[in-house]
């Protein structure tokens, strides 16, 4: 099926509709024994017309689900394996041998970090809110007189007098987990524990040693003494990684890196 070359240009061109040619119907058109009249066609759920497409959809799902149902192993794609390396962010000594894991680690723990108190947040929005509520003295003054605690859900315009009220709103209205936490003060650490990430998660999960609630939204990245490493192997890395970095075959962007599946063709 050869398409006219100008078509691709048209697709890339400006929106617009064609100026219609004049319509002029003859009453004899479509009269007996003929019957044609242009008709909008609609198909309901169970119509046979959908059979082929539905079958293709289910074949795809069958392929996918046979993989999903399998025993979980640590997911690995051989191409993503690299020689072991350490996270270069100051104070973090997590080690990786797969780029995808590192990307996840970086986004979860180092990406939106408060420069005042080193807390890490899952998004820029939450980081901004945190800075406002924690490191802005004007906020505290205003909060005495008016509702300043903004709902964390983007698009919800509710404001609250206290963070506790806000939390209640989040749980009731937006169905956040009841043990969600955004504002509990940091407790100082004991002796250094290997791996900043594990330490952080243990605390976030309401570990008994540190009485605090677990949470889904806040990730803490406290400074931890780095484990000793041979002096000669220290490398100088830039700590500024652009936000659009995508290691190896990380997060897909649009259609460019569409998923690859093991199709049983």
């Amino acid at each position, binding site marked *: 099926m050869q398409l006219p070359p100008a078509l691709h240009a048209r697709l890339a061109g400006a*929106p617009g509709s*064609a100026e*219609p040619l004049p319509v002029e119907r003859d009453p004899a058109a479509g009269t007996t024994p003929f019957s044609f009249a242009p008709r*909008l066609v609609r*198909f309901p*759920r169970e119509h046979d017309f959908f059979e082929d497409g539905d079958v293709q959809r289910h*074949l795809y799902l069958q392929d996918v689900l046979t993989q999903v149902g399998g025993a979980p192993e640590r997911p690995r794609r051989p191409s993503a394996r690299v020689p072991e390396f350490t996270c270069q962010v100051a104070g973090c000594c997590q080690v990786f041998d797969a780029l995808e894991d590192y990307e996840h680690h970086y986004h979860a723990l180092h990406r939106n970090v408060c420069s005042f108190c080193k807390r890490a947040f899952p998004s820029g929005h939450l980081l901004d809110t945190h800075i406002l509520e924690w490191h802005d003295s004007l906020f505290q003054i205003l909060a005495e007189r008016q509702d300043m605690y903004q709902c964390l859900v983007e698009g919800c315009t509710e404001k609250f007098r206290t963070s506790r009220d806000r939390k209640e709103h989040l749980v009731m209205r937006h169905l956040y987990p009841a043990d969600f936490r955004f504002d509990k003060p940091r407790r100082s650490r004991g002796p250094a524990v290997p791996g900043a990430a594990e330490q952080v998660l243990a605390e976030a999960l309401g570990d008994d040693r540190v009485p605090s609630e677990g949470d889904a939204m806040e990730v803490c990245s406290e400074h931890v003494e780095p484990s000793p490493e041979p002096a000669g192997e220290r490398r100088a890395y830039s700590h500024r990684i652009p936000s659009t970095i995508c290691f190896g075959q990380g997060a897909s962007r649009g259609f460019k890196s*569409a998923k690859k599946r093991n199709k049983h063709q």
Partner: protein
Amino acid sequence: MWSRQRGGLKPLRCGVEQLRCRRREREAALRKARREQQLVSKRLLRDEALEEAEEGCVAMIFGEAEIQQFLRLAQRGTEEKEREGALVSLRRGLQRPETQQTFIRLEGSIRTLVGLLTSNQALLQLEAARCLHELSHSEQSAVVEACLPATSYLLTYLSGHSSDFISPHLTVLEALGYALSQLLQAKEAPEKIIPSVLGSTLPQHMLQLLQPGPKLNLGVAVEFAWCLHYIICSQVNNALLITQGALSTLGLLLLDLAGAVQRTEDAGLELLACPVLRCLSNLLTEAAAEAVGGQLQLRDERVVAALFILLQFLLQKQPSLLPEGLWLLNNLTANSPSFCTSLLSLDLIEPLLHLLSVSNVVSVLVLTVLCNVAEKGPAYCQRLWPGPLLSSLLDTLAFSDTEVVGQSLELLQLLFLYQPGAAQAFLQQSGLQALQRHEEVAQLQDRVHALQQTALHG
């Protein structure tokens, strides 16, 4: 997990021919199931997946205390492996309907699961998504409905992260979309589930996830496009979806798809094309699609260009989806002089004629679209003529399929009516002989005779 080979490559245990044979068998089984109205992903996928993947593990029925323990371990365990293990055990248990029931009745269980779905540990997120996946497989509507409020929260949470979508989030989103699509496929969905979905913020979230752009993820989009399809073809309140911008979002997505199809050889785009084509086609039949003021109409000529690029792609990759594409073309052109004009001015008639040899269903649709153009009058027929149209019509008259021939006769009538010289040319090309073949066919004879008269006597 949906988007990548998370479980690693499966060893090829049989030859290519056996695989093809196996696939044909599966296809036949699915067709049969659909005809018997039994095509619900859950049951069939359950059996298939269980056979191949469980490797002899029998799912246990867990009671409240056990479930609580798994959840506690998953949330608060100190060892990563321990936490994952707890979720794996829970997931296996959730294959049993009894465990599912117990789970949803246990207070806070869904909430805890939601918490794990938004954990910052990738593997926990994935296992939690698998649990949600199991629940969405349930045959019991109560179980699936219990997941519905969680879906809303999760979409809110995940949409808030749209600028940092990382792979576990995408996997969770895909799982959510799949779970929702199961919910929407249920028999009772149109009465019970779809109205409440339409009354929530879910449609807006879904449309947001279908916005073309750098953040669009194919796996996620596929699931939510199917969700939209199940909602739309149930015809509960499509006008509402149109006011929320469904037509324009899907139209832009169609353009984006056509662009993607040109750039990459990657398979999988047809998985998204199918539900998008269906949604657009069905939405166009709504009265609201013709709203005064034109804001809500789909009028952009680029949609036609995109559709043809997709038709070409489907011809290569998935010819069985050509009818769906042509269905959209019919709905675009039926009442739109503008789109009919686009077909002519963009030189798309000849490519359209190329499709006439694919199958009877496709041929009927192609001829219907051509009739949509021709019936608008002389100005349109003039642009259809001369060109390859006549010889294509003579070819279709040689078909034995009654519907194909019937549609050809309708088109001929319009051409004879509006285009001077058409009848003459027809005669000169042995048109009468072509017609004679069908003189005795009941559904065709009256029209055949009428055309013979017109051709001979004007």
